[in-house]
């Protein structure tokens, strides 16, 4: 496996690993790790680093919704133009063009259901190319970006074993 791919695996698992610890795991030296990470960032492969948050454990209201969007294209306006416009909204945390019954899958976040509804009805629905919106409020998150939510599993192995 090439070094960059291995580095991506490690960063996907824990982006906070220090270059020294990554070096110890991969056999590269720390300077080489830093160079490779800089290259991945410069190439636009690594776009950023974020925490995976269990909002149920945060003491403030946080609402997430998944939006299905259907759009109508014309000669001047393609998916790209519409996507660029929608992606600018800070309420939109992810935006994907998908195959199937609708065109865009949009993740929206807000402080309340009212916020999110208002955002959809006042900002998204009025976009001329948007023909239909369906909003699904997230009721519970069980897994996010590969990380399971809920109670942390205790290690129930014996302290020592053969």
């Amino acid at each position, binding site marked *: *496996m090439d070094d960059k791919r291995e580095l991506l*695996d*490690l960063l996907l698992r*824990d982006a906070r*690993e220090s270059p020294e*610890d990554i*070096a*110890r*795991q*991969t*056999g590269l030296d720390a300077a080489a790790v830093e160079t490779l990470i800089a290259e991945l960032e410069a190439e636009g492969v690594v776009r950023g680093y974020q925490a995976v948050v269990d909002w149920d454990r945060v003491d403030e209201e946080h609402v997430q919704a998944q939006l299905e969007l259907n759009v109508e294209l014309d000669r001047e306006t393609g998916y790209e133009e519409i996507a660029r416009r929608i992606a600018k909204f800070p309420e939109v945390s992810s935006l994907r063009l998908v195959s199937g019954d609708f065109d865009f899958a949009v993740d929206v976040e807000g402080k309340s259901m009212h916020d999110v509804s208002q955002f959809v009805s006042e900002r998204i629905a009025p976009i001329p190319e948007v023909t239909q919106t369906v909003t699904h409020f997230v009721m519970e998150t069980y897994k996010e970006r590969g990380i399971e939510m809920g109670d942390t599993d205790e*290690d129930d*192995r*014996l*302290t*020592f*074993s*053969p």
Partner: protein
Amino acid sequence: MNRHLSTRARETPPSGIRRFFEVAEEMDDVISLGVGEPDFSAPWAARTAAIDSLERGRTSYTSNRGRRDLREAIADRVERYDQYYDPDDEILVTSGASEAVDLAMRALVDPGDAVAVPEPSYISYTPTVSFAGGDPLPVRTRAEEEFALRYEDLERAGAADAETLVLCYPNNPTGAVMSEDGLAEVAEFVEEHDLFVLSDEIYAALRYEDEHTSIATLPGMRERTVVFNGFSKAYAMTGFRLGYALGPPEVIGAMNRIHQYTMLSAPTTAQYAAIEAIKACDDAVEEMRRAYDRRRRFVISRFNELGMDCFEAKGAFYVFPKCPPGWEDDEAFAEALLQEEQVALVPGRVFGESGEGHLRVSYATGMNELKAALNRIESFLRE
């Protein structure tokens, strides 16, 4: 009461890690690197196969030898190590590789027979030799040789007079592996002195630099070797208790005769899970192997940085560093580390005299715990 106990039971010492276990159990916030089992759960596909078998009510005994489709799957699987065994009479499915070891000892060892056991060794070999009435003959291996077994080691220990030789590579507790050339040297000794070999290859799938070679594939060795393997380590299925033995029909037949009066057959649910593990879980095994490999590099590098000499173990999920300078006694070091920093390591002497001055460190533990444990060891050494 004691007079009712058999001499064998009375004379069997408790496992050397027992005392540490009891101390550690009383403490909070212990990070244990003493665990000889994967920290992963069994692949989901294997678990669903177990659930499915229960839902369908498949709860009866199986053939003593194990389900035929499982034996066929095992035969297909071991071909990756160039081993060819007939599912009809050369494969026995057991309740863990541990049962297979015990059966082989009882099938092959007569009272008074010497059984050569290279040290440091997995803690069960010596007692199972004794249970079978045999005399364990320790064969010391050396840290300078990365604990690989050499012809001279066997010669020096007087293994020429032994009936049987136990091998465990990749090794618990050292993580040592044997090269094909190294195995050929051992095979030469075995043939010269007409020994039979019990080769525990439970960690065969966990090799990090090159492919595993089984001694049974070397010329002349197949007919004088029983190979043990199982699902505990590679597939993280320790609790399923499923292993197997591969060997010549006469030996497997003899093992099965004992097995059919004691265990009868391996757990049925586990056998269904194992079939699925073999058929559908290669990717999961590879993912776990890669995770172990990263951790292995990390711990070796950290121990060497801390001045605890650690050779580059290339298999299983253990490393075997030396005690740091100033600490001769591995047991005293492990005890002090446990008391002061709540890090649990296993003293090397538990695995035989040649393990003295070393520590067994399992890296079958998450990276965060490994990092924290090594940081605690570092602060212990600084004090």
